[in-house]
């Protein structure tokens, strides 16, 4: 039986990696991936706690998160394609026209 804390530590590490990548990376696809990484780190936490307390609600949350992530990925990839067609770049620093 793996102690619960192991899962949580792994989850924290994954989340931190995701966050660091989000802050540092400029490629929009990489940023997307780091967001997915953070979401899945959270999913791992949910599952770990659900297992510990024998409650099913944590696992149901995970399904919701997966659905949202899938929807996000679909919309996000569409935006990225549209962006690449107009700007011919994936660098977020060059896509700041919304800024004043």
């Amino acid at each position, binding site marked *: 039986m793996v102690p619960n804390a192991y899962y949580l530590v792994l989850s924290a590490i994954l989340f931190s990696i995701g966050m660091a990548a989000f*802050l540092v990376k400029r490629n929009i696809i990489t940023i997307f991936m780091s967001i997915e990484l953070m979401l899945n780190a959270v999913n791992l936490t949910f599952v770990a706690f659900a297992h510990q307390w024998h409650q099913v609600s944590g696992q149901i949350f995970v399904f919701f998160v997966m659905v949202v992530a899938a929807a996000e990925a679909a919309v996000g990839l569409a935006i990225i394609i549209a962006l690449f067609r107009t700007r011919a770049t994936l660098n977020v620093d060059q896509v700041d026209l919304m800024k004043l």
Partner: protein
Amino acid sequence: MTSSLYLWLIPLVPFAGFLVNGLLGRRFPKALVTTVAWVATLIPFLQVLNIALHLNSLALPYREDIGTWITAGNFHADFAFALDQLTLIMLLVVTGVGFLIHLYSAGYMAHEDGYWRFFAYMNLFMFFMLTLVLAENFLLMFVGWEGVGLASYLLIGYYFTKDSAANAGRKAFVVNRIGDFGFLIAMFLLIAHFGTLSFSGIFSQIGQHSEWQGGFLTAIALFLVLGATGKSAQIPLYVWLPDAMEGPTPVSALIHAATMVTAGVYMVARAHAIFDRSPFALTTVAIIGAATALFAATIGLVQTDIKRVLAYSTVSQLGYMFLACGVAAYSSGIFHLLTHAFFKALLFLAAGSVIHALSGEQDMRVMGGLWKKIPITFWTMTAAVLAISGIPPFAGFFSKDEILYQAFVSPNGAGKILWFVGLLTAGLTSFYMFRLWYLTFFGESRAEHAAPHTPEPGHQPEKEEKPHPVHESPWIMLGPLVVLAILSLIGGWVGVPAALGGHAEISHFLAPVLQAAPEAAEGGKSVELLLAIVSVAVAVIGWFIAHLMYFAKPELPKQLAAKVHGLYSLLLNKYWIDELYGAVIVTPVLLISRYVLKGLFDTGIVTGGSLALGYTTQGIGSLVQRVQSGNIRSYAGWLAIGAAALLLLTYFGFGVRWSF
């Protein structure tokens, strides 16, 4: 006493006249403006006359409540009018002299711009003055008090395009505010001690408490005196009255001689119950009066502007009235007020007639030899000069003599000194009045030698025309002069003292309101007779010196002026009081306003404070705006740092205990 006297109509009719002329007068023809103004003053006069004729069937004091004005807790102030003997005399003076001056004004002001404005203001003045004398409580009196100040301001500044007139109006207003401050404080004290401002309420309370002597009554009385010195042009607040001569001459006659300036005397007489309990306040009044009388008379000796001489003479005569009140001879003060209203109004109107005849000239040095050219003005002026100088049997003799006698016999320790000052002033008065008389009417005409003058304020001739030749005034102006001259002659006979074979009717008449002046005992009669002879002698000496200096030896005044040059220029410059006030009061106030209040407080603290607030906000903003870089990743970084901080806070606690 069954029927109402409709006292409220007396002030309200002139007010209606003011409204009609003030709102519509601009479009009216002059004749209609004049008619409205005349009717609006004639009706109150007839009403007052009617009351006076039916006096015997009236129960005085009569009181008329119009309605509630202010109710605040236990304090009430009502619209209430009262009529007693004192009020009646004031009403007769105000409406009678007021009506005559309205008649005269129609002639004097005929060529002026803003004719309707003049009469509207005059009616407004009548409204407030009548409110002042009819009021049954201090607060309503104060309304009239302020109102006459307003009307006075408007009329002094009648020629408002002239700087000097506008400044004179402002000066009158500001100086009067100082006095009004005293009046206000006195009213606050009255409310604090009596809980009411009604005359009957206050005076009956004082009557019930004979143990109240001095103390807070002195304080109230002194603040009332401050108010009175402002309105009645006494030391130290007299400075506005000579400048007020910038107004048209009828205004000087009505407001600044006959009626408004006597309001202070009236107020002291009205509040005599308070003053009687405070010997200190009474002595103060007497000293202020005597000092003002002498002081103003000395300035009057050397002035060359005919209206200024009369202005200082007015200040001086008001000093006499204060002197009378100060020795508790209130009825003598009111008597002098009455006769003074006649002869001083006459003097001003006659002076106005002279000015009119000379197309606006006011400088006596370029007058002279006028008596044949304007004989009616001359004779009426003569009556007034004799009256003010105290030559029997003219009006001024009896009233002035009464005051001097009362001062002489007063139990006040300074009575004899006050009498002597009064006597000296009487001599000076006689001198400067006859000086004016000789300079104006006798000798050679000096008009040709004079440099072409710019018309002084008061009467501007039609500017395009050449000055008219000297001409007598129209009858609409001469009529009031004649009536006032007759009054100046016989007006004093209502108060002939017992020592001279009279019955002193006026002091008996006023006795129910003001306690009667002490009757001269048998031994006192000879004293009174002696004093009368002395004062007549002094008046004649004054006349004689004036005759010598300005008729027999016209070169004498110049030599004398050269000999005592310092004294002469001191008097000519009015003791430099205006300059002194300017240096001691006005300049510091200006400096404080400009540098401390405006510079330090307004610009420094108020403006500076708001600017500092603005700049601080801007500065903080410019620092904080860097956070909003528009860079999504930096926002995310802040978010992460915040989340981490919250996490740490939750974990390590810092004393925070979460409780759900």
